């Protein structure tokens, strides 16, 4: 560890140590939930829409974190699974009149199958073939979406209906904000439970040392495939609700830039550190918004800031506790 991060690390360690005490941890969680609940009323519609987008990114970044952070696989085409989820919902609800809630499991299944088809052969190979293949997959999906009649070509799909949930019509931006709050919480809980499980540990073993992991009886290919498919499912669920929220989707929502932005949130967060990745997702979405009064310059200022963070904190903004001893 470099000396320059000791002071801020100590502070964060102290804050994190506070959360070890159950009372304070539940207190902290309660406070976050209350803040989430009052946000639309307190900050108005514009902020609510931005926060909804940030929460979508929390889901996507936590999904990609399973692939990149936990299992150490470089995926450059993650937005493709996001697209599979969104387009499956669009096509099934518009062309086939399927109910959103019935289309959702199909979207998940479609993404999982795509994950197996792409990951199955590629993950057998060592090294970074996966980066190239996933990059290609991302472009193929976007290219197909731009050119196929069923996906509405370049103009995409519009008029996707808003779902009902037990008599609640999820219609207003605030409704969708709360849906994405629930999805983000679900993504956090699932991530935490996976991390502290037999499979979650296996991902870390494979990431740290593939050979030793194999020597300990771990099926390297199967474990990586599980990570890849898990990430695909997170993205598909995010994509499904994204489509329902906007009502319209187009190929440009699923570009390479999108994949890079999600990857940035994971890397900023420190790959594999769940609180860091959540923070990374918020920074990636809220950063440009907070710099709005800089006008034209804001994206460049933001890019420079990200660059500086990566230069000075290559292991992410959230330090892993316990490593320093």
């Amino acid at each position, binding site marked *: 560890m470099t000396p320059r991060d000791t002071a801020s690390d100590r502070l964060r360690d102290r804050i994190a140590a506070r959360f070890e005490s159950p009372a304070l941890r539940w207190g902290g969680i309660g406070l976050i939930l209350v803040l989430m609940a009052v946000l639309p009323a307190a900050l108005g519609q514009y902020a609510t829409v931005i926060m909804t987008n940030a929460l979508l990114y929390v889901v996507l970044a936590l999904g990609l974190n399973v692939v990149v952070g936990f299992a150490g696989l470089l995926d450059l085409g993650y937005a493709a699974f996001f697209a599979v989820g969104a387009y499956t919902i669009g096509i099934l609800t518009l062309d086939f009149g399927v109910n959103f809630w019935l289309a959702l499991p199909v979207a998940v299944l479609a993404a999982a199958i795509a994950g197996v088809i792409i990951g199955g052969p590629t993950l057998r190979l060592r090294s970074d073939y996966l980066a190239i293949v996933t990059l290609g997959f991302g472009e193929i999906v976007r290219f197909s979406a731009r050119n196929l009649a069923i996906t509405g070509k370049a103009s995409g799909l519009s008029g996707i209906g808003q779902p009902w949930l037990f008599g609640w019509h999820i219609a207003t931006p605030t409704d969708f904000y709360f849906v994405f709050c629930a999805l983000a919480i679900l993504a956090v809980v*699932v991530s935490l*439970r*996976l991390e*502290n*499980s*037999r*499979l*979650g*540990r*296996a991902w*870390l*073993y494979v990431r*740290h*040392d593939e*050979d*030793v*992991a*194999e*020597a*300990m*009886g*771990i*099926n*390297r290919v199967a474990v990586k495939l*599980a990570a890849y498919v*898990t990430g695909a499912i997170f993205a598909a669920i995010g994509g499904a609700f994204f489509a329902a929220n906007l009502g319209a989707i187009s190929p440009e929502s699923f570009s390479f830039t999108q994949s890079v932005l999600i990857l940035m949130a994971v890397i900023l967060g420190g790959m594999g550190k769940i609180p860091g990745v959540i923070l990374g997702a918020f920074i990636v979405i809220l950063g440009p918004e907070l710099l709005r009064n800089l006008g034209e310059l804001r994206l460049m200022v933001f890019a420079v800031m990200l660059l500086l963070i990566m230069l000075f904190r290559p292991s992410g903004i959230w330090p*892993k506790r*316990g*490593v320093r*001893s």
Partner: protein
Amino acid sequence: MSGALLNLSGVSLAFAGNTVLQNVDFQVAEGAVVSLIGPNGAGKTSLFNCITGFYKPQSGAITFDGHELLKLRPHRVTASGIARTFQNVRLFREMTVMQNVMSGMHSRTRSGAIAAILRLPSQRAEEAAIRDYCEGCLRFVGVGPEEYDRIATTLAYGHQRRVEIARALATQPKLLLLDEPAAGLNAGEKQDLIALIRRIRDERGISVLLIEHDTGLVMQVSERISVLDHGAMIAEGTAKQIQSNPKVIEAYLGQEDAEAELDF
């Protein structure tokens, strides 16, 4: 010796034309402690890598406990009952002692993603059982509870070696392969290691095959010794037979540190 636990016959391995193992025949009997010695570069570690499925020999057969090993990928070899340590300690960095040892239990447990996400009772019971078993392995090798949650690579070197053995024991093997387990240990730690190897065989019923340079240690723990030189098995027998074998003496004479290594 078809009744042997591990049986290698006619195993040959080459890398880009360089012969590493030539026509090696070798056995480990059930319940034995066997040592494999030989000068540096003789091919001892390569032999381990062939047994554990990391290297694929060009010819020969390896059978273990009724299984044909050569067809199996490394994780399947481990599942069939062979565990190993590495010549240079290879613990998972940034992970605790307990997490390291838990890796060994992977092939003996089943819970997947769904069970973990739903925290099914079966998954929680399995997690508890994994922890219990690994605690038992750590206690067995003499690593105390105060070290369980430390980052494994921050432990004293001797303890890292013990953790690596505990991790191998957690795979519940029938045969344990130790690659130079005494390297870098002091005299006291070597005595502990000798006692540990004996307990592994006597209390856990695990056969042991070890590669070792420390001949004093080899003499004390192993009933039989095999000698590998330039990829060929040149001698096999008891310590006494090996000591007086002219081929063995000759093999070691070429080495500059022959005196130190073969001070029978």
